[in-house]
């Protein structure tokens, strides 16, 4: 454990909710509105943490465990990720598999908790999440496989950590292809347009939001915060691939904020996909990732 790696954790944990603020401000600008303050997500989390909670009598411990396990998983996953020259809190061969696994455990408990609420809406949301993540996860695996092939290592730190004077190290194969594949996975996993609509209030069309419908108070704050961190982690992967060869942590941070603007622009300029079309998009991302892997092996 080193000081720089703790600094990285601290930066991520403090700035993650800001990304939502940037996305929302970008969307507001496109819509001709002023929009919510950049720090709105912090205000929301702070407000929710001060509130009490109400639980339905239908629910069991699974429902209460969902948000806690989700946040724990995403925090551990964060500890495995390096940021620019700042090393990860811990690293070992095969840690990227652990990271994908942690995100899967998070999703698994979110879905279980949603089903535990006993509402038909949440059941539908869980079923959609299961279907789409079954396609997004292999795509993410293939992306990592391609990067690790090039880096000749199974550790995230070896894949992404910047060393001064070593320009080739950590660069991804066919970065454009890989970035597109990762970006699609990033949008899908974080429930953004065109896969999901984070702003909708229509239960019948939701995927991710619907699974959090029965939560309030600190539980909801945990869910918001965990989604912000998840957005940070997957966003950092995209940025790392695009900015391979750049050695500054600030550049990666700036890249993340720029990514947020791109997400906002995407959400402002296209409609959400029909639910039936989402698998095709995710399979497309998987195919791109597979192509990168073939390039990396060649």
């Amino acid at each position: 454990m080193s000081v720089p790696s703790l600094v990285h954790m601290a930066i991520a944990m403090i700035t993650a909710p800001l990304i939502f603020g940037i996305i929302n401000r970008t969307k507001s600008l496109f819509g001709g509105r002023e929009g919510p303050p950049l720090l709105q997500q912090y205000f929301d989390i702070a407000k929710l943490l001060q509130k009490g909670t109400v639980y339905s009598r239908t629910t069991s411990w699974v429902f209460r465990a969902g948000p806690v396990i989700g946040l724990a998983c995403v925090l551990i996953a964060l500890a495995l990720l390096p940021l620019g020259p700042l090393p990860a809190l811990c690293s070992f061969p095969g840690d990227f598999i652990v990271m994908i696994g942690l995100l899967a455990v998070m999703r698994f408990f979110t879905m279980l908790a949603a089903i535990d609420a006993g509402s038909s809406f949440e059941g539908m949301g869980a079923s959609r999440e299961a279907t789409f993540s079954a396609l997004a996860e292999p795509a993410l695996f293939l992306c990592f496989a391609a990067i690790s092939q090039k880096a000749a290592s199974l550790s995230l730190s070896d894949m992404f950590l910047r060393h001064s004077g070593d320009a080739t190290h950590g660069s991804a194969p066919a970065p454009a292809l890989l970035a597109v594949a990762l970006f699609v996975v990033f949008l899908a996993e974080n429930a953004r347009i065109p896969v999901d609509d984070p702003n909708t209030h229509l239960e019948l069309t939701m995927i991710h939001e619907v699974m959090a419908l029965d939560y309030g108070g600190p539980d909801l704050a945990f869910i918001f915060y965990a989604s912000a961190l998840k957005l940070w982690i997957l966003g950092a992967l995209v940025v790392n691939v695009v900015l391979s060869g750049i050695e500054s942590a600030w550049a990666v941070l700036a890249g993340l904020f720029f990514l947020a603007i791109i997400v906002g622009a995407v959400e402002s300029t296209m409609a959400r996909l029909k639910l039936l079309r989402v698998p095709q998009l995710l399979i497309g991302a998987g195919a791109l990732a597979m192509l990168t892997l073939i390039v990396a092996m060649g």
Partner: protein
Amino acid sequence: MRLRNAQCISRADITAFPIDDFRSHIVKAVNQGARIAAFFCHDGLLIAVLARDEEGILETISSRANAAYASITPDCPQAHWFEREIYEQSGVKPEGHPNLNPIRSGQSEFFRVDGEEVHEVAVGPVHAGIIEPGHFRFQCHGENVLHLEIALGYQHRGVEAALVGGPDKRAIHLMETLAGDTTIGHATAYAQIIEALSPARLSARAMVVRGIALELERLANHTGDLGALANDVGYLPTGAYCGRVRGDFLNMTALICGSRFGRGLVRPGGAGFDIDASLVDELSDRLDLAFRDLAGAADLLWNSASVMARFENVGTLSLETALKLGIVGPAARACGIERDVRHDFANGVFGFSQIPISTAPSGDAFARAFVRWLEIQRSAAFIREQLEHLPIGSIGSQVHALAPDSFCVSLVEGWRGEICHAALTDSSGRFAQYKIIDPSFHNWFALAMAMRNQQISDFPLCNKSFNLSYCGHDL
């Protein structure tokens, strides 16, 4: 008896048939292209108003029914909702009707599909958005909707009952709040009834002011709908701009009468507010500005492939189903049916200045959205034209006591479709019955049909493309 829109006739002139002939007459007329505009029971007397769109004729027939009669619905699906209402309100039983659940006083039994992997989703009556209450029961197989049943009545206020014995001072206010978004439409239909039964002559200027108000209401609501449709598929720019422009149109109505929804603007005998010369200029300027912004927002919508992919082939209603259900308004015109009260039963200013009928052939959510855009353009052009040539004269005329023992049907093309009011007066010239048929009454079942074999996640989009009224239906 064949009568025109807003024509007063004696109750004795309504053609009376024995019940079997009454039934076969309706079935035959509907097979020949007529539509049931109203069908209700007054004191054991069944009264049906058949609209013959091509001739512009409203045929009214009646029949004495005892406790029960053979249901018309199996031979004529249009009668479905009407007969449920008749049974609920009067207890006269249409025997052989497939579904006699009440339409307003709470439905407890629902059709149910059984089988493995079939699940039921219940939505409402309390919804997540700021909308009216209604209950939707879906029978689904995975994401696929096999059947949707719509249960309404949560907004039932007893308006029709409150109007019996009228008209009184309250009546016009009840009309303006039948469906808040159709204030002008319902108030105009009511005013036409009073003017026909009184009788009162409407000045040309009052007609034009009313016509402008009706089209402004259409502009505001159609614009709001386009924005809401864009929002439902997550397309922000059009959603945001249409929301603002809708406000601009509402403010134009407010400029005339002080109320964004047009309360107080339409009064029996004329209009409550005049449009003076300075207002004409102001309204023209505002119309041009709002329309320019709206055209930009609409262009964005039609030119986004991702939006069109969501709108096209969603919630398609076939022409055959639409004709069978006798639906009205933009939903009917989106199936290619040329049906518009402003054209078929032209009254008031529309008798002098025709607005072309806007249709689209495909019957899907796209067609329903596109018909709205066509109508927006034509309504804007109409308002511009009328503002330029505002007739001179007064805006109000005297209304007298209503003719006793009379009957009158009044149709108005509200922004949602055909609004039908029918009034029967007693021997002292008071309302013995006042029947209101909001366009939603015809169209709710069409929404259920359009959802068959659709994705349940497309329901909000489909629902919005019809945008039916709950309170207008529940009364």
